[in-house]
């Protein structure tokens, strides 16, 4: 990775031109949220609605077939909370670390 997340003035590329493709992957966009989705696996029916509806592709499937949000990319929009037919996703306040 050539690009620094917080470059100093002299490290900033000319005209902030990005010379490397796919650098948006380096940006963790998950720190925007105030509420975060929390999945209650005991109620989950593994329908994948959260995975399909998530606008940030933040849900990942685990080995057991459950879907879990990746908080590095989840922006806390709450669409999964509304779309879950089993009502298994809670929406709780993000704690500051």
């Amino acid at each position, binding site marked *: 990775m050539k690009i620094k*997340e*917080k*470059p*100093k*003035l002299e490290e*900033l590329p*000319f*005209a*902030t*031109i*990005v*010379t490397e*493709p796919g*650098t948006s992957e380096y*940006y963790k966009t998950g720190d925007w949220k105030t509420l975060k989705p929390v999945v209650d696996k005991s109620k989950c029916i593994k329908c994948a609605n959260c995975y399909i509806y998530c606008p940030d592709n933040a849900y990942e499937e685990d080995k057991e077939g459950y879907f879990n949000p990746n908080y590095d990319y989840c922006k806390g929009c709450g669409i999964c909370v509304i779309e879950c037919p089993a009502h298994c996703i809670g929406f709780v306040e993000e704690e500051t670390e």
Partner: protein
Amino acid sequence: MAKRTGIEVSLAIAEAVRQSEVDVVSAYPITPQTHIVERLAEMVADGELNASYITVESEHSALSACIGASLVGTRVFTSTSSQGLALMHEIMYLASSLRCPIVMALANRALSGPLSIWNDHSDVMGERDTGWISIFSNNGQEAYDLTFMAFKIGENKQVSLPVMINFDGFLLTHMIEPIFIFNDSEIKNYLTLYDPTYRLDPKNPVTMGSVGLPEIYTEAKKQQDLALRNSIKVINDTFKEFKERFGREYNAVETYRADDAEVVIVMQGSIFESIQIVVDEMRNEGYKVGAVELRLWRPFPFDDLKSSLKDKKAIVVLDRAMIPGGPQGPVLSEVRSSMYLDKKRPMIIGVLAGLGGRDILLSQYKEIFNMGYDALKTGNEPEMAKIIGLRE
């Protein structure tokens, strides 16, 4: 050798653009700039200029097209005036932040309203903070010469910034003047091929104009500020080289009989030449007066201006645009601010004159010089600028 020809200044600028061998022109006609772009369209249509002339539906699109063309690595020219420049406003910042060395010929004209097609400096002052290099010319020869220098300065790798050349609408654009027109070969040797640091090229893809997150934006703005601030060295070197090559002298700050003067007028544009007549007259009457012109507006020539003004007793700053509800004149405000920290400084008085095409009479320049002498007598330095010729 260059040949001196009687030519309308607008057409001389178009000729300079042709001789600079631009690749792309995109512009939208507006009074009093029209003759420039009309002539260029004709040149392209007739095959005299091998360039793409992109016709657009507005100035907003004209400058947008220029940016795209510039990012591909071509030499680009546009020209506008007044409302046209105001419509470009949003895109002006992008041209400078994307470091596109576009050259713009700006026929200075008042902004509406009331609607005015006549000359003042409202348009350029409205774009003061857009990050462009901004240079004033005082006559047709200068507008012609500076067009070449604008490409030379903007395309310098250390600079890589857009440049606007200011010249007074009608007072210059529609004037037929005797101008030394270069042979094409002289310019061929002077302007080298534009070689950008980065260009849009499918073989070497890069991302330009990406989002600036809060972690980046501050540093990016400082980078732009430094680029503009440091360009003054290249600008001065370009002026120097031009003099060595072609014999005509240009300075960031121009002076006329100012060395031993007590009272000077500081101003910009073609009125610099009218003031010289008054300076000569008053000198004959025994007044030690002079004139100082801020040819370079951005980057602001702090050092050159200070060294021209530091020994003066009073300076009167003549603004040709108004800051309503503020410190009245943009040039007044900046000249004052640049000298604020100096222990010893002249008295600084402001006047507004020649708004929306109102003539400034030679007798009024005399009145303005006398305001400087009055201030010295009374010790009174008015905060607000006086509007010359205001009926009240």
